[in-house]
C-alpha cells in the first residue's frame, strides 16, 4: 500500500483547496446562507465542478478528474475546516461511486452530468432514527413489468435541493433489497423539509405508489449491496475526512483563543489545566488523521477489503470531532455559547455528521465484528 504520508499531489491539492475555500466559503458563508434561509450555494458548486471536484471520482472517459478516494478525502477535510456546504458528499462521492459500479449508458450519462456539476443526487436509506440499511421496509411491489414504491424515508441529506434520489427498497424477504435511481419530480414522490440544526439540507421523502421500471434500478434487482456497499463506504470515508477537518478547524480556533484571551492577567493558555486538555486533543486528532488517510488508501488500492478501514475512520472521526467541539465551546467560555460566534456551527455539524451514514456504535460494532469479537 502507498505510504501513510500524503503524496506531493495530495499536499498540493490540499493547499489549493484551502486557498480557494478560504476566500469562497469561509464559515461566514454558511452563516450568510443560514440567515437567508438557504442550504446550498449553486454558484459555489459550479466553481467546484470547474476545478474537477464534482468529478473527483468520475472516470476521465466520462469527463471526470478521477483523482480517487484519498484525494476526495483531502477535499472533504478542507471543506470540513470551514464547514463548507455543498453536494460534494451526496453527489460527487456517494452517487458517483454507486453509478461507477454499473457500466451502462445511462449511468455513464449521469456520471458525465455529475462531473459537469449539472446533476445532483441524494441518498435515501434511513427509515428510523438510526442508520440501518438491512432494516429497510420501504416496499417496491412488483406490478406488471415494473414496481410500485410505497413507504417513507427519513434524514435524506441534500434531498431538498437534489435532482435525483437513490432509494433503497425491499423487493422481497430476507436480504432482497434493490437500489432505485429516481428523479425527485416523479409522480408520487413528495418531500417534507426538515430544518436541521446544522443549517443544511435534509428532508423526509414520501413515496406514494411511485411507479418504477427495470430501467430505474441501479445494478440488479434484489442485489442492492453490490452497488450500494462501495458507495456507502466511499461516503463514510469522505464524511469521516470532513469530520477530521471539522475537528482541526475547531481546534485551531480554540488554540488561537487560548493564546489571545487574558484572565487573571495572563493568556488562559498559560494554565496547565487547559494546556493538557488542548495537548490531549491534538494527540487524538493526530491518531484520527492516520485512520482517515488509511481509509482513503484502502478504498483506492483494495476496495473489496476496505470495510474495517472505513469504519475505523468514521468511528475515530466521530470521537475526535465531538471532543474537539465540546472542548471548543468550554474553552471559549461564554462567547462559545453565543450564536454570533462560529463554534456553535462546528458543534451542530459534528452532531449531524456523527449520525449520518452510521453513528459511533454502528461503526465500532463493524470494527469489532471484523476483529473477531
Amino acid at each position, binding site marked *: 500500500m502507498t*505510504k*501513510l*504520508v500524503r503524496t506531493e499531489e495530495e499536499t498540493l491539492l490540499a493547499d489549493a483547496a484551502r486557498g480557494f475555500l478560504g476566500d469562497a466559503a469561509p464559515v461566514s458563508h454558511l452563516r450568510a446562507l443560514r440567515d437567508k434561509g438557504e442550504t446550498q450555494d449553486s454558484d459555489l458548486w459550479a466553481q467546484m465542478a470547474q476545478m474537477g471536484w464534482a468529478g473527483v471520482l468520475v472516470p476521465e472517459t466520462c469527463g471526470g478528474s478521477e483523482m480517487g478516494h484519498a484525494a476526495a478525502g483531502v477535499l472533504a477535510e478542507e471543506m470540513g475546516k470551514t464547514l463548507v456546504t455543498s453536494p460534494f458528499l451526496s453527489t460527487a462521492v456517494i452517487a458517483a461511486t454507486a453509478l461507477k459500479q454499473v457500466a451502462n449508458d445511462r449511468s455513464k450519462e449521469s456520471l458525465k452530468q455529475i462531473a459537469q456539476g449539472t446533476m445532483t443526487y441524494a441518498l435515501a436509506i434511513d427509515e428510523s432514527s438510526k442508520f440501518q440499511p438491512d432494516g429497510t421496509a420501504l416496499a417496491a411491489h412488483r406490478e406488471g413489468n415494473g414496481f410500485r414504491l410505497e413507504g417513507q424515508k427519513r434524514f435524506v441529506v441534500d434531498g431538498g435541493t437534489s435532482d435525483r434520489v437513490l432509494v433503497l427498497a425491499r423487493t422481497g424477504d430476507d436480504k432482497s433489497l434493490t437500489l432505485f435511481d429516481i428523479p425527485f419530480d416523479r409522480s408520487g414522490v413528495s418531500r417534507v423539509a426538515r430544518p436541521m440544526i446544522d443549517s443544511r439540507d435534509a428532508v423526509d421523502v414520501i413515496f406514494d405508489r411511485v411507479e418504477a421500471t427495470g430501467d430505474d434500478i441501479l445494478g440488479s434487482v434484489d442485489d442492492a449491496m453490490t452497488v450500494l456497499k462501495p458507495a456507502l463506504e466511499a461516503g463514510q470515508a469522505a464524511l469521516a475526512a470532513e469530520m477530521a477537518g471539522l475537528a482541526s478547524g475547531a481546534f485551531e480556533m480554540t*488554540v488561537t483563543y*487560548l*493564546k489571545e484571551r487574558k484572565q487573571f492577567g*495572563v*493568556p488562559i*493558555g*498559560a494554565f*496547565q489545566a487547559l*494546556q*493538557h486538555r*488542548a*495537548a*490531549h486533543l*491534538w*494527540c487524538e486528532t*493526530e*491518531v*484520527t488523521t*492516520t*485512520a482517515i*488517510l*488509511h481509509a482513503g488508501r484502502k478504498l483506492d488500492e483494495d476496495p473489496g477489503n476496505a470495510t*474495517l478501514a472505513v469504519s*475505523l475512520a468514521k*468511528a*475515530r472521526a466521530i*470521537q475526535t470531532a465531538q471532543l474537539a467541539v465540546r472542548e471548543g465551546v468550554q474553552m471559549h467560555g461564554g462567547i462559545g455559547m453565543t450564536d454570533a460566534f462560529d463554534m456553535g456551527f462546528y458543534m451542530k455539524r459534528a452532531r449531524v455528521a456523527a449520525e449520518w451514514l452510521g453513528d459511533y456504535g454502528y*461503526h*465500532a*460494532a463493524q*470494527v*469489532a465484528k471484523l*476483529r*473477531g*469479537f
Partner: protein
Amino acid sequence: MNGHLDLKDFREKLRSWLEQNCPEEMRDGAAGDDSICWGGKNWNFTSPAQKTWLDRCAEQGLTVPTWPKAFGGAGLSRDQEKIFHEEMRRLNARTPLQSFGIWMLGPALLQFGTEEQKLRYLPPIARGEVRWCQGYSEPGAGSDLAGLQTKCEDKGDHWLVNGQKVWTSYADKADWIFALVRTDRDAPKHKGISFVLIDMESKGVTTRPIRLISGASPFCETFFDDVQVPKDQVVGTVNRGWDVAKYLLTHEREMISAGGALMGGGRALGAVLKESETGLSDPIQLSEAMRLEVDSLAFELTLERFKDQAESGQGVGDASAMLKYMGTELNKRRLEMVMAAAGSDALDWNDGRAPNWLRTKANSIEGGTSEVMLSIVSKRVLGLPG
C-alpha cells in the same frame, strides 16, 4: 560507481556471511526477555552459541552496525543498515547484543565525546565487554530532572561524587554508569549539570534493587559516598551536561514509542473477551473493549505512519511525545480490560496477568510521565505560553 549495484552486492555478501556465521540456535528471532544478550564483565552466556554469535558479530562491527569502524562499528550507511535489518529478519536471527551502552551512551559519546573518550569507551560496548547503566532520576528529581542534587565537586586532580540515584535499571549488573551530577550549585539549575562516567567498582558505590508493586524489577537505587572520579570522565563541557541529557531523552522517547513492546500491540481484544466467562455478555466490558479496539487499531496505524514519515526523511520530532503518551495510556487501558475480563482467574499471582497489569502502570511514568508529554506537546507543538 552505481550505488544501487553496490547495495545489491552488499546485500549478497551480508546474506552469505550471516548464513555461514549465525549459529542455528540463534535463529529463533527475539524469543523473549530470556534470550537477550546484555554483555558485560559478569555476563553469563545462556549458551556457547550466544557467545559465538556475539563474538562473530563484534568482529565485523555488526553489534553496532552504524557506528564508525574506528569505534567498533561497521560504518554502515542508512540504506545499508536497512538491508542489515532486513537480512537479520530474513534469517530470524537474534540481535547479538543489546545494552544501554548501544542505545544511549554510544549516541551521546558519538555526538559529544572527545576522540580519546570514543576510543576508550565505544569499542568495549561494541564487543559486549562493558555493560552500562543510566543514572538520571533522584528521589527529589523525577519529572523535574534538572533539579537533581547529586554533588560532584572539583578536587583538583579528581571529582568527588556524593548523592543518590533511583530507577537505575540493572545498576546491580552494570560495570559502569553514566550519570547526571551537579557541578555548580549556584548556577541556574539547567546550567550547573555535568554528564559523568563512573566505574561501578569505584570505592563508595553501592546499589540496592527495588521491588515494584508488580514484583521483582530491574530497577535499583544507586548510592555514591565520597566516590573519586578521574577528571577526564566528564562528557561534553562541564556544566553543560543538560545538552547531552536532552539529546538522550529525545532519543529514549523515540525508542520507547517505536518499540511497540509497551504499546498495546498484541492479540485482538475479541479473542481475550471470548476466553473469559462473562466478557461478551457484559455490556460495559464489551463497549469498553470495542472502544479500545478502535483506538488501538488507529494508534498502530499511527506508529506505521510515523515510521513511513521517518523513512521519507521527515523527522518524528516532538510528535514522539504524542506517541509515548497515547501508546502507554492505551496499554494501561488494555491491561485493565484484560483483568476485568478475566475476573478472579487473574487474581492468583501465578496466573501471570496481574504482574503485567501492575507493570503497565509504570509505562506512563518511566521515560517521562504522561503529564510531561502533554506539557511538551502544549509548548513545542501548540506554542502555548509558559
